[in-house]
């Protein structure tokens, strides 16, 4: 009944567990020898084994709600933990506090684990942070700013200026790799964000509307139309309603934006990035 492929994973996992357990024991020993109180700085920050041990703790105790990949589960409001570090206010100490105390009034319970185990979990969360790249893009940020305003700002915002049909890009280089950002420019339909799924519809008065879905239930749909107006429709009053595969964002091929243009835009975005993330 149990497949060979699963058995392989299990055997591998078991080895990992035993090594992880030794790591936990070793780190805990060092930790206890040096420290007696919880503090604001992760005492295991520079210990490479901490993140690995924290991963085991995460899988055992956190993954059910936050997902095995820590990307969160929407249906139970469990947040994406790979993005928490993009917030200005997030520190090792604040994450430690949240794990230890839980979140009042939410499904997130307090945790009784010894402090070293909580720090290990913090280390693990640091290690999986979607933190973009620390590599500096070689480009002309000033030129990039102009290119951005010309090509992108109708739909995207940076530091409060620009449109809203697409995602806010103020901190995007902190959350996405350069390769994936380039890919989004060249092939915008290959990956469309959850709150930017495109639809087209026709109303009873034959108005054609395109937009991105913000919310939907069995009876209605709430969207931002291509003129960036928030609108809602009852599905029964529509003549046609189609989920589109193609993003509303135009494809920027090499002829539209050269590699140099793209680098300038990314350089501009990187220069505007609210907070440099480093581990």
């Amino acid at each position: 009944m149990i497949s060979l492929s699963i058995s392989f994973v299990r055997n591998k996992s078991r080895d990992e567990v035993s090594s992880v357990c030794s790591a936990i024991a070793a780190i805990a020993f060092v930790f206890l020898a040096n420290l007696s109180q919880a503090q604001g700085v992760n005492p295991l920050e520079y210990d490479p084994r901490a993140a690995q041990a924290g991963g085991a703790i995460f899988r055992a105790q956190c993954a059910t709600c936050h997902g095995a990949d820590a990307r969160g589960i929407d249906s139970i409001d469990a947040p994406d933990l790979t993005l928490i570090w993009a917030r200005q206010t997030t520190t090792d100490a604040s994450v430690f506090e949240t794990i230890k105390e839980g979140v009042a009034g939410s499904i997130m319970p307090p945790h009784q684990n010894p402090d070293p185990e909580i720090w290990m979990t913090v280390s693990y969360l640091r290690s999986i942070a979607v933190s973009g790249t620390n590599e500096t893009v070689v480009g002309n940020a000033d030129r990039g700013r102009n290119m951005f305003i010309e090509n992108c700002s109708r739909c995207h915002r940076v530091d409060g200026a620009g449109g809203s049909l697409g995602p806010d890009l103020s901190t995007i280089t902190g959350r996405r790799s350069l390769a994936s950002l380039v890919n989004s420019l060249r092939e915008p339909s290959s990956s469309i964000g959850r709150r930017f799924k495109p639809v087209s519809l026709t109303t009873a008065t034959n108005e054609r509307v395109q937009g991105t879905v913000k919310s939907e239930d069995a009876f209605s749909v709430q969207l931002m139309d291509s003129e960036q107006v928030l609108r809602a429709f009852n599905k029964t009053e529509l003549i046609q309603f189609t989920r589109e595969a193609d993003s509303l964002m135009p494809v920027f091929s090499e002829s539209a934006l050269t590699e140099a243009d793209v680098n300038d835009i990314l350089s501009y975005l990187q220069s505007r990035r609210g907070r440099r993330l480093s581990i």
Partner: protein
Amino acid sequence: MTKRDLFEMQNKLFWKLIFSTLCLGLSSSLMGQSNTASSSGIPNNAGPVYEDILQGFDDPSRWLTFSGDYSGKRHSPLQQITPENVDQLRPLWTFQTGTTTRGRGFETSPLMDDGILYVTGSNNFAWAIDARTGRSFWQYRRDLPNDLTYGASAPVNRGFGMLGNQLFMVTLDAHLVSFDRRTGDVLWDIQLADYKTGYSATLAPLVLDDKVIVGISGGEYATRGFIDAYDPATGEQIWRFHTIPALGEPGSETWPPDPEVLSRGGGGTWMNGSYDPDLNLIYWGVGNPNPDYFGDTRLGDNLYSNSLVALDADTGELKWHYQFTPHDINDWDSNHMPVLADIEWNGQDRRVVMVGNRNGFFYVLDRVSGELLLGKPFTATSWAREIGADGRPIVLNDGSKGCLPDPWGSTNFMPPSFYPDLDLFILTARETCATFVPEEPRYVTGQSSFGGVVFIDGEQGSGALRALDVHTGELRWEFTYPSPTFGGVMTTAAGLVFAGDHEGNFMAFDVESGKNLWHYQTGSRIWGAAATTYLLDGKQHVLIPSGTTLTAFALPD
């Protein structure tokens, strides 16, 4: 409702009142009390007795137990709200609980007696609420310890049990508490198990003649599940049935012969059971074995995990069991409301129990013998498509051939409903896609031991309200939802189905066609809860909990 119907109902109510009064008088005098006033002149409204609960929907001004009656059908005889007028249904009042369960739901089924609603909420809040105004008489808030384990679940509660002037509620710190329903004062408070090791309790107690039956949560921890019976007057334990046998007991042969493995075998009993007073049997679902996803250290079928058990109500003795998912490695607890009905089966009258299971199958069993009569899939699950002649699922995909239903399953504890005139079983179905990666857990007291992780494909998920022909398991109709849904179902004899969805809609459907007739946006997902309905001042009301609110609906005057 015609005038004749109304007359008959009033006539029925009159005799009901006479009967109830006699019963009350009898029970009160047995308790050494006068029905109208005690010797000191203090008024004494004795409250419902066992016979009242037994009569279930015969008195539609009451709702005295979780499903409205012991059968779990959640099918009310009320016919004032009809497919023709349901679109005029409007909210009368909304009660705000002031306590949240982010990520889960307000899962309670309020009890109704004499114009008062008895309601439990998240974080072990509870209230007595005036059913006419939505204003509360009293509020209870339990002083919970700050190191709760929650049984790997959430701070929810599914309702009170009631008998006489006593209410019964289980708590997140695994206690059973009795209250005076007039004041909310605690009468007694007993521990079911040690919450620090992972136990918790969330269900609505099942109140029988002289027993309060409860189950326990905690299958995600190294715990051992049980079903308990307590004396309503004192809180003393009458019996306990362990869902995981001890070494040497029947069923232990389906586990490794290791007392430690058995002692942490899981098998939670966190959802309500149903009761057949003629057979004196209670029917209760048992949850997953522990660790949830890692089965290598618990080879075997792991009885009585993922089973339905039929227990003698007086002794807790096991009469029969049926295991839906032998050796579960997907966390497909069988904690569902067992639905009892008497139906014609191949020309014979059969007493059956029906279960829509988390593993994706709909089952009909003979509830006298436990014989399997039908097992058919009601979702697109690739795990199995049929049950073999030996009564076991023929597993086609253990997860190695693509995704399986996620750990929340093809349905879950949200109550289904049975519509007798059409022999339809109506339930909320979830279509999901998950990949399970087992990993041997550490067993640390008070820490969960899932034994692996699950990757859920968030893009591939939908929900549906489905009506199944109980004779064949075939789909009669469905209404689809944009996301996997956790709302429960109630039906009324007027031909209506009431259901809730994950987007917050409370809805009514035509039971024959599945056509949506009405919806109301409550503002929060309807999770775990199903509607209740009753007559108040001669008028049918419908209640639904959602998010942090309880809303009452009725037709305009």
